[in-house]
């Protein structure tokens, strides 16, 4: 036995994480939640004051309702997952709270019969309901899934469920297209983006599948240069994943989900096999597909042009058919990315102050794809960086859970979920800040709409459950039975 105070050579080489929290950490979580909720309330009140110089007392009840739901979840955790990481829930709550405030802060314009804006309606009703539902589902996941590794029992069933969710919008009558992308289903007045749930199924499937197949996938085939290529006959799954993404991409023009799922797959294969060759082959295949798509599909070229010429004044000068009347010619003007970037630049280092920025209501998708713009503008570069670091903290807690966990499946699942959140943030923020083409992906916790909130809260539920399992002390033998060892499995 190595001395507990001096980590053994083996531990150092493998960078094994000792359980970080030998004791329950619910007290820290409670304090952090108080901080997160206080910041949420302040965000609301400052935004309200900035909008019209009034103190908005009516904002306190919704925040209290949210607070009650959050403390409900916190109390549930005290019983269901007492050893869980104390930061995952508070960070998620703070992000969700900022999301609520931002959605309230960007009101929908109320128009009269002539289409002129007569006022603004500030609502958080739907977003609040979805948030509470999300919290409930998060607790539900923690309650139902006592042992996360059980999830690996039915990989193909989960895969099929995932496929069904992703393909739902293609069902005639149910599906609903916006701006050429058929990503939504509509039930009554509610629209829902089922791919948000579908991707959870994919993460679980990937983890389960890779645990089962990692030995074969790790086998080296021929060696070219310093890279061990996998055996040709093992590349099947990669090709399938690739084909699935191409299908998503072409059939539903959903560039974002396609990129997200493929990258997720590569990251998880790498985690399972430690073979960098998989990543290189995958990236090559994706690049080839992307180049081909660029030349084949107009909408891909359009996306790329939107990125590369977003701030080009001469591009904005070009005449295109008017949006209001296609018979006439209008100047193209700045697209929503350019408008968003102008807003960010206006915010500068310290921001315009909450509620002070002008012209959000004129920018398309400001409360979904471009929601981070609202925060970056009003809180400035400082606030934007703080927001990014908040996401980074969340992802870091997830990866830490992965390292601390025992069992291959749980490790892969925690890695996959963390990477999913990180890459989703990258796709959105990269899209609105001119790093990569804007793909129409939701920002976790912040974007308007229920599917993203629910999907992300389910992921948080899984992470919290896995962190509890990871940090829970091993059962202690009741009596000293000599050589008998307790095996946790």
């Amino acid at each position, binding site marked *: 036995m190595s001395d507990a105070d001096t980590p053994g050579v*083996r531990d150092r080489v493998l960078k094994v994480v000792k359980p970080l929290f030998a004791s329950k950490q619910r007290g820290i979580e409670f304090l952090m939640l108080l901080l997160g909720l206080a910041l949420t309330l302040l965000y609301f009140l400052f935004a309200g004051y900035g909008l019209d110089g009034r103190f908005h007392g009516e904002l306190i009840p919704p925040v209290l309702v949210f607070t009650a739901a959050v403390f409900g979840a916190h109390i549930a955790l005290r019983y269901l997952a007492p050893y869980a990481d104390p930061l995952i829930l508070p960070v998620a709550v703070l992000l969700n709270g900022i999301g609520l405030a931002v959605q309230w802060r960007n009101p929908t314009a109320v128009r009269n019969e002539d289409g002129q804006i007569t006022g603004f309606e500030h609502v958080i009703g739907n977003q609040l309901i979805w948030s509470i539902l999300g919290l409930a589902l998060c607790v539900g996941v923690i309650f139902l899934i006592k042992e996360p590794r059980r999830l690996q029992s039915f990989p193909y069933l989960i895969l099929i469920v995932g496929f069904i969710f992703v393909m739902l919008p293609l069902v005639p009558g149910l599906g609903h297209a916006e701006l050429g992308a058929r990503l939504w289903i509509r039930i009554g007045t509610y629209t829902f983006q089922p791919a948000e749930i579908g991707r959870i199924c994919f993460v679980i499937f990937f983890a389960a599948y890779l645990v089962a197949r990692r030995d074969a996938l790790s086998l080296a085939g021929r060696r070219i240069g310093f890279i061990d290529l996998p055996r040709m006959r093992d590349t099947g799954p990669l090709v399938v994943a690739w084909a699935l993404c191409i299908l998503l991409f072409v059939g539903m023009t959903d560039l974002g989900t396609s990129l997200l799922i493929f990258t997720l797959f590569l990251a998880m294969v790498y985690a399972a096999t430690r073979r960098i060759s998989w990543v290189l082959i995958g990236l090559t295949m994706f690049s080839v597909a992307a180049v081909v798509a660029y030349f084949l599909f107009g909408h891909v070229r359009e996306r790329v042009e939107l990125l590369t010429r977003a701030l080009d004044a001469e591009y904005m000068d070009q005449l295109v058919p008017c949006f209001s009347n296609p018979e006439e010619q209008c100047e193209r003007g700045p697209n929503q990315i350019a408008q968003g970037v102008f807003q960010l630049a206006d915010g500068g280092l310290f921001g315009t102050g909450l509620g002070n920025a*002008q012209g959000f209501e004129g920018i398309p998708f400001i409360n979904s794809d471009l929601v981070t713009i609202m925060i970056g503008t009003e809180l400035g570069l400082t606030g934007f960086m703080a927001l990014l670091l908040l996401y980074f903290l969340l992802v870091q807690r997830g990866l830490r859970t*992965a390292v601390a966990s025992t069992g291959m499946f749980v490790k892969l699942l925690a890695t996959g979920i963390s990477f999913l959140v990180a890459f989703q943030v990258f796709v959105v923020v990269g899209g609105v800040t001119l790093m990569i083409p804007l793909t129409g992906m939701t920002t976790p916790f912040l974007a308007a709409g229920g599917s993203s909130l629910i999907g992300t809260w389910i992921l948080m539920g899984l992470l919290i459950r896995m962190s509890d399992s990871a940090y829970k002390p091993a059962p202690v033998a009741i009596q000293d039975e000599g050589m008998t060892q307790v095996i946790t499995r």
Partner: protein
Amino acid sequence: MTEDEKPTAAERTNIPIRRIGYVVMALFCAMLLNVNWLQALRAEELNNHRWNTMRLQDAFNQARGPIMVGQEAIAVSEDTSEDENADWEYQRTYPQGDLYAHIVGYYSPAGQSTGIEFYENTLLSGEDQRLAVSRFLDTISGEEEQGAQVELTLDPDAQQAAYDAFRQVNPNANGAAVAIEPDTGRILASVSVPSFDPNQILSEPETYTELNENDNQPLLNRAFNEVYPPGSTFKIVTAAAALENGYSIDEPLSGMGPQAAPRPEGGADLPNAFTGACGDGSPSIALSIEISCNTSFANLALDLGADAMTEQAEAFGFNGEQLELPMPAAVSSYPDTMEGSPIGQNQVFDSGIGQGLVQATPLQMAMVAAGVANDGRVMRPYLVDRVVAPDLTTQIEANSPELLSEAMSPDTANAITDAMVQVTQGANGSGPGGAVPGYEVAGKTGTAENAGPTHNWFISFAPADDPQIAVAVVVENGGGSGGSLAAPVAAQIMEAVLE
């Protein structure tokens, strides 16, 4: 567990998970760097993007700094939060209306902004990086953010006098007047008539179209941006060229000042503006200035040659860089070539009396007068005295006098000054109307031929022994003489500053 126990497969997975952690870290670093690039490094560029409408909206929803002349604000942002009908949180108003219109310009939601409002915009709006600290402190202390205060060099009395005098002497004429402090280059007055009311452009956008289409071009700042043939006022440049090239002021120019001088390349003879020869036909340069002799100066220019004339004109600022006051001023020209080939002798001949190809702005001619007044040293003219942060104590920018060029030696300047004093005081002086009681005024009249009625000029400075102000006045197509139409305006401007 022992040291040599083989790690489980799951434990070995920690290594790739950590590497994925580094990849995630790299992704976040890329995002952090990118937002820094957009919001810090490129912010100013993006804020000034042609298609960025945010800038204007911001401009009207926060207090722009005032533009000051002396103790008086000539552009202010009024808080309209009490006014339910207001489109913006602040209304920009110009209390002096058309008096400062061409200088202060206007800041319009329609986007056509001009004058100091346009050229000092980033300071007035507070966007300038130098105001970042002040802006940050305002944010923290919860005070309303405000732009910097821009203080102009203009003298309110001189400006008012210039405007009133123009309206009094030439109620319907177009024209301009510029006054400069000779030893610093500070612009003391700058008037262009007809003027317009910037308040009206802001309140009724259709006014702009009307003004823009008006034949009298009220939107044009004639003082800085219109060029005219300078006529006889340019004789000061010719005289300077002569004195710098070996002539002396009192030496008779033998036979050079007849009643009419033949042009070197043929064509109609050049007559004097008055009947008869200049003096006895061999006037000195001093006398030629006093009575504004055409023939002697045309012959002088011919004698000096195009190179010497060009050199002297350029020493005063002709053909030079575009001055930024901060608004750009038109460049006055003394062309030494026409359509690619050197100008002919006739053109050199005509240029000696400021006709032919010579074109000058009123600002340029004021600089000529100021150059003579300041012992030959032409100072760079400027309009913005200093810029102070909203706290009114932190100075952000201050202009100090700067030498533009040495146009002539002090001796030449003194000699020309003496001759110019005779223009307003001498028995046969051409510009007695430019005299100011109690002061010695050095002046020069000008009556410039052009397609329409003559342009009437007067340039002057006073007091001759210790000049405080140099003035140029032009009355566009006045049809009279510089002495009668322009000199009285110059006299009233000088009087306002001297008293």
